[in-house]
């Protein structure tokens, strides 16, 4: 070839399938990381607080459910993204259209993954505080739950933007 190498050339020569697959992996993997992190943060406080105040257990499972929802968002978006992956003929693989589709799926995966990571963390920490304060004073539960609902909206924002991003991932049509 004899052309000078540079990072931009190297990046453009990575297959768009790679980018798309990594995006799907990040979407489910990092979302589950966020959900798991949030669940353990809530769970350890809930178990300890329920020793002196057993009445809090059933109500406070809602915090665990909010964290779990974050993982479900990640799974849904991963399934949607993998239906967007199509095969493209060899000559078209590095066409700008293909690259665009690959990058779109990658970005969508990162958006959803990291939005769910921080959402899971947020809901987990609030859930732990919710359990601890409910054990002391049961009128506080509903008020802190409102904070948790706002926190879980963060994951939804990520899912919405991710789906919009991936809807424009159109691969070039196969030329016969």
């Amino acid at each position, binding site marked *: 070839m004899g052309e000078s190498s540079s990072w931009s050339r190297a990046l453009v020569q990575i297959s768009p399938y790679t980018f798309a697959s990594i995006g799907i992996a990040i979407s489910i993997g990092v979302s589950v990381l966020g959900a798991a992190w949030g669940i353990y943060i809530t769970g*350890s*406080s809930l178990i300890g607080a329920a020793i002196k105040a057993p009445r809090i257990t059933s109500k406070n499972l809602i915090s665990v459910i909010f964290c779990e929802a974050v993982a479900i968002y990640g799974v849904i978006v991963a399934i949607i993204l993998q239906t967007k992956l199509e095969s493209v003929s060899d000559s078209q693989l590095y066409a700008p259209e293909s690259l665009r589709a690959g990058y779109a799926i990658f970005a969508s995966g990162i958006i959803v993954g990291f939005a769910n990571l921080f959402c899971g963390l947020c809901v987990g*920490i609030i859930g732990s505080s919710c359990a*601890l304060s409910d054990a002391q004073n049961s009128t506080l539960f509903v008020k802190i739950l409102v904070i948790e609902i706002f926190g879980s909206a963060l994951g939804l924002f990520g899912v919405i933007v991710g789906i919009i991003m991936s809807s424009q991932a159109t691969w070039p049509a196969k030329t016969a």
Partner: protein
Amino acid sequence: MYGFEALTFNIHGGYLEAIVRGHRSGLLTAADYNNLCQCETLDDIKMHLSATEYGPYLQNEPSPLHTTTIVEKCTLKLVDEYKHMLCQATEPLSTFLEYITYGHMIDNVVLIVTGTLHERDVQELLEKCHPLGMFDSIATLAVAQNMHELYRLVLVDTPLAPYFSECITSEDLDDMNIEIMRNTLYKAYLEDFYKFCQKPGGATAEIMSDLLAFEADRRAVNITINSIGTELTRDDRRKLYSNFGLLYPYGHEELAACEDIDQCVCHYLFQAKEICRSPSASPSVIGSYAIPWEMLMSWHS
């Protein structure tokens, strides 16, 4: 760095934090104390306490009750909760919790040695010891005649061993020596605890510095007042004060020179006011200095 501890704190501390918060709701309230004040007999007290968290510990006691029994059973509640926390804790929290018991161990050691000196029965003394400060070979303390034996036979295997380096003499044990030994041990223990708390930094260092400084200053004043009129020289008195705390080092100079209670109280209050005016004193410390002033006034009158 404050702010991100919530992400990883619950790994080691989540369960224990929740338990401690649960214990807080078991503390006696002002209403409980009012009820207890209205009681006429010990059985009334037992009845009122049975509605609180202390109930399960007192319910099997036959009447007639003794005051010491009530105190013993209620202390047992504290000991049970402490032991539960200790077995659930990981490092460095478990070491921290063990440090809390060393003070009680020192008190128990001094109790047994003093009791043996006054020819009391070992079993009787063991019953009077604080349960948090018990260790395995504590009964062998009755055999020791002087400090060398005390150390070599019993204390070298306990966590108190490193605190002994400053106070081993070959004199026989008598009341004065035992008090000096107690205070030297406690000084070494407080300094060790202080150093241990500085290591994790953050909230531990901040809060424990204040609490331990207060304890060190309180003991310095205590030592001063108790040694007025005894044969303890100024230098010996000076050696018993801890090397930290708000009274260190200038307050200690003044306290070492005190010869009667009024002087001591004036110096102490002067120091406390200076400290309270300085920008480095935190509100918790200023508040805590108000308490010993009350105590000092009650000693004086």
